[in-house]
């Protein structure tokens, strides 16, 4: 385990930015989001949930993947390169878990090589949470607020210092390059981390308990809820916007579109949302999910039943963004409760 004095962080970032594109939580116009680091950027490591999760770094909102050229009846197709190496610094455990969750889908056979390549190019440095937000419930999905098993490097904020622990080869390789900036942590570090993790977990557990958000068997509970009247109540206020899906670290639906300029063009994939009315609209006008009810149901069923059926993991990390941001307070914890998926 290593450590770095927080005063030295700017030097560290500068170095990382030399190595690869560095993204970290930056405050701009009062909003903290993952953004490329540049000299003088207002890095904010205190914020727990960035407004938008760092999902877009591994799965960009839109991503060109081929270039085409059409001339008369001739077609040329040329795949495009994926951006080079990058580092994500300061990702919170829930957000890292979100990436690990969508990994399951994209890396599953047939492997989405576009995703894989971009994913492989990135090194994720997580930052454990000390305190929960009011809307945090990651422990409900068996995540640990203080620790991120899927990160390449884990860090913890111990006030003066940041503790630093590479978790795999990728992490080690990067750590090696930063040797001069990192110092060896003392023997107490492991204990400090342990304590931090426990404290964080118990604080959040307390919050979750208080809110009645301790998820238990929601998958099983939802198995017979396709026709349940719980959906009748929930969907009615839904505005059909994409706030919840676009802010969710695990939502991953996309659309494929072409952009053209004359005979040249690009094909890209871009985020799409199951909450949009035209998401499943077919060419001949039929729609298997004709009203918002089916769409809302799909969103929750997908996260809490279908995804775990296919990948043995819930597609929710309890980050609470949708809870916080839904304009009409459609709240996944309420849905879980309504479905009977709480202790």
């Amino acid at each position: 385990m290593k450590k770095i004095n927080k005063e030295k962080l700017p030097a560290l970032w500068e170095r990382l930015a030399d190595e690869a594109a560095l993204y970290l939580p930056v405050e701009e116009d009062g909003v903290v989001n993952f953004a490329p680091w540049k000299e003088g950027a207002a890095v904010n490591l205190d914020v727990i949930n960035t407004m938008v999760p760092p999902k877009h770094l591994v799965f960009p909102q839109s991503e060109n993947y081929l270039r085409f050229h059409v001339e008369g009846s001739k077609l040329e197709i040329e795949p495009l390169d994926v951006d080079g190496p990058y580092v994500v610094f300061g990702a919170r455990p829930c957000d890292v878990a979100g990436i690990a969750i969508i990994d399951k889908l994209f890396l599953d056979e047939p492997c989405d090589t576009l995703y894989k390549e971009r994913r492989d190019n990135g090194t994720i440095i997580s930052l454990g949470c000390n305190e929960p937000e009011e809307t945090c419930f990651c422990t409900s999905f068996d995540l640990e607020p203080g620790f991120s098993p899927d990160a390449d490097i884990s860090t913890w904020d111990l006030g003066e210092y940041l503790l630093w622990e590479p978790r795999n080869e990728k992490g080690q390789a990067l750590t090696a390059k930063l040797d001069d900036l990192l110092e060896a942590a003392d023997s107490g570090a492991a204990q400090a981390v342990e304590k931090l993790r426990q404290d964080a977990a118990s604080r959040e557990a307390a919050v979750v308990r208080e809110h009645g958000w301790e998820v238990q068997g929601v998958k099983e509970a939802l198995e017979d809820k396709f026709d349940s009247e719980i959906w009748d109540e929930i969907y009615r206020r839904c505005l059909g916007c994409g706030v919840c899906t676009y802010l969710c670290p695990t939502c991953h639906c996309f659309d494929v579109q072409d952009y053209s300029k004359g005979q040249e063009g690009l094909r890209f994939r871009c985020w799409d949302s199951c909450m949009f009315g035209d998401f499943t609209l077919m060419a001949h006008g039929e729609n298997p999910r004709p009203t918002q009810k089916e769409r809302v149901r799909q969103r929750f069923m997908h996260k809490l039943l279908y995804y775990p059926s296919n990948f043995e993991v819930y597609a929710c990390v309890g980050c609470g963004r949708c809870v916080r941001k839904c304009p009409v307070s459609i709240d996944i914890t309420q849905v879980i409760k309504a479905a009977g998926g709480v202790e």
Partner: protein
Amino acid sequence: MTVLNPLLPQVAKIVKIKAETPTIKTYRVVMPDGSKPFEHIPGQCAMISVPPVGEALFSITSSPTQEEYMEFSIVKTGSVTNFLHEVEEGFEIGIRGPYGNGFPLESFKGKDILFIGGGIGLAPLRSLINYCLDKREEFGKIDIVYGARTPDDMIQKDEIFKIWPEAPDTEVHLTVDTEWEGWEGRVGFVPQCVEEICFSPENRIAVTCGPPIMIKFVLQGLDRLGFTPEQIVTTLELRMKCGVGKCGRCNIGDKYVCKDGPVFTYAQLLNMPPEY
């Protein structure tokens, strides 16, 4: 060798276009070197690209036993298909696939097969029919029930009128929705026709594809005739973008039509939420 991006199409070429009906054309597609784009199992699909308009998924209607080329029958319905209906022979397209599970051929072996198709629904069936006819000895009796609104709306007229009826131990039952001048065959909807002929479920698999409403009634009819859900196989159509189970659009419960389908037995469908 690096694994190719599954979303990346290969350039292929339309070498022949046959107008089937005013809104359906059949396209013969090969790679630029003249070879067949890829191998497939009947029932599988391919994603066809026409930049800058887009991509759409189509059943491969030619049989895998056809070594030279691949064929698609395409209805004009939206932007991609409208565009395809305007191109001429020699036009290059993008193609990727094959997608989907295909028909469970192993379980069909040695059985009588009843094909029930309506309109463009013949497209995926045709792949299997020709496959069965090419491997005639592996299957029992073959019955093909095919219907369309009018005789003019029938596709693959060569095969349904001439080739298939002549194949050994094969019967073709054609029907049109309403009386039509010059039509001397059956009149009535496909489900009706199936029940009238009264196929026995004995050692028989029923494979059906057509418009949703037809499928609904065919299933009821087959049920009345005593077919078990396991004996009935159908294909589904949902909007899809990637074809590889990632874009999140074509799921029915935890099944993806692109990966786990489009071929499903009725028994499977009964276990899935009715969202198609």
